[in-house]
């Protein structure tokens, strides 16, 4: 490193710090202020009261939590399987990594549309299931009568898309485990599944934790994939924030929803950190 004169590095960092201050910290403070303001500018809990009594609120809250509970574990299992397979370095693993990582840069809106082609009435899933003789007639998965199917469609689409991010985090963690550990376990006759459970998982803990935290907090923002597959039939918190601002032109209630998402994000991060005893540098990945 160059000799440290604090002025130069701070000068280089200043634009970033000012920008993030102006466009992240300031809007957050503004949003919280907006949420405690009524349309006439007076302060109070009016927006929160309206948010609370909004008929979609309970449903949106419940759906968002249920989606997280369904999606996050599924992604962890899928990504862990992919990561362990790739890490065994079998011939051709490079091509498989490329394939598994493809959804990494697919947006949740696009993922929702991809799975819409699957789940729509005259879509590919009905074609395949009927072709295999598993169903007698097409199922209307995305109809309002089949809320459980709409929910499953969103879970599948979101798991399909965001597993890739978890995969990359876990693979990076696997690469930090010295090869010797795997070989030692082999010499002592541990079979593959026991080896995985007893040797790899504990050492992979930091990566599993950061993947868990990142996926959970971003799942609170779920939006595009739900809108593409379910429209308004499956309200979620992100959609309510959008709807109150974009369609109802009420920035106060929209800000209340946004603040709720932020509070949930912070709460989950703190709970995870307490439960898993994560250091702050680990969550910051």
């Amino acid at each position, binding site marked *: 490193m160059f000799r440290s004169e604090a002025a130069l590095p701070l000068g280089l960092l200043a634009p970033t710090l000012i920008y993030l201050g102006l466009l*992240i910290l300031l809007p957050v403070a503004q*949003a919280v202020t907006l949420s405690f303001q009524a349309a006439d500018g007076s302060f109070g809990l009016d927006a929160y009261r309206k948010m609370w009594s909004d008929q979609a609120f309970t449903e949106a809250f419940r759906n968002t939590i249920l989606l997280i509970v369904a999606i996050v574990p599924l992604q962890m299992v899928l990504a862990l399987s*992919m990561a362990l*397979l790739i890490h065994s370095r079998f011939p051709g693993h490079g091509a*498989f990594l490329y394939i598994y990582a493809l959804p990494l*840069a697919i947006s949740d809106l696009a993922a929702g549309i991809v799975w819409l082609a699957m789940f729509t009435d005259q879509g590919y899933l009905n074609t395949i299931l009927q072709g295999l003789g598993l169903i007698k007639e097409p199922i209307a998965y995305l109809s309002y009568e089949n809320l459980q199917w709409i929910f499953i469609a969103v879970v599948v689409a979101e798991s399909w898309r965001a597993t890739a991010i978890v995969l990359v985090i876990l693979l990076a963690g696997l690469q930090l485990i010295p090869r010797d550990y795997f070989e030692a376990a082999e010499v002592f006759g541990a079979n593959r599944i026991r080896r995985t459970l007893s040797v790899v998982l504990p050492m992979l803990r930091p990566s599993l934790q950061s993947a868990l935290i990142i996926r959970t907090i971003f799942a609170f923002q779920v939006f595009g994939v739900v809108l593409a597959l379910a429209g308004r039939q499956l309200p979620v918190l992100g959609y309510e924030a959008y709807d109150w601002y974009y369609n109802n032109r009420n920035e106060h209630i929209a800000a209340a929803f946004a603040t709720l998402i932020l509070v949930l994000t912070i709460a989950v991060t703190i709970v995870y950190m307490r439960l898993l005893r994560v250091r702050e540098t680990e969550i910051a990945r």
Partner: protein
Amino acid sequence: MTAIAAPAVRRTASRRVIVDRILLYGAAGFLALWTLFPIYLIALAAFSERTAIYDYPKALLPTRFSADTMSFFVNSTGVLSSLRNSVIVALGTIVLGLLIGTPAGYALARFSFPGRGFIQVGVLISKMFPIAILSIPLAVTFIQIGLYDTLQGVIIIHTAMVLPFIVIVTAGVFLGVSRELEEAATTLGTSRFGAFVRVALPLALPGLAAAAIFTFVTSWNEVFAATILTVRNTTLPAQVLGALNISPLYFRFAGGFFLIIPSLFFIFFMRRYLFNLWGPGR
């Protein structure tokens, strides 16, 4: 005894290897199919005749191949202009983000100074704020200062979203560029800025290109802020989102496939930097 037992052991061992291999490739192939098949099907839907959307059962092979659906999508009102907007916003975000973020990444990679760790953690935490809480107050502010429904406004918020990533990636890139070369240049009489521009920057170019590609895809994909901050002057995903309820299925499928296109090339360029972006090891 041993002479008889040894081939038997070897035979069971080699059979186990074969079974292992079958299980391995079976599992790997199944997961690959799970990832690839939906992409194949959306491409199939996007490149079939428009009327094929109403076929049932659907053809699983491209029997009704046609560019009809895609050209309908591209020529629909608002699509071309929003596509142009998306490209402008993404390129603008790359320029603004790299201009602001590269010096910061360089500083974190090259200098030790008081508060360095604190700043590093602060930058990392700033990428965790929900986009909803940023875009709603910004919409209010942008209306007041005349940036609402402009591409500049979208560029500004997209830059805020990617800036932490750019700082992290460029810091990693400059850590990989030999410091000694730069010091050698300064001892030969170049200013430190000259050494940065002539020595460090050219060596860091591939890494900066990766940061640019990441920025492009992030901006291209972002739909919440783009929808909140614009009305008519919108980006492609916001255009597709706005049309979800009022457009025929073939429009949505073509739009979905169109939105995916950049991501199909993303990994190809990013493989070396994947772990830099999401992994530990900084």
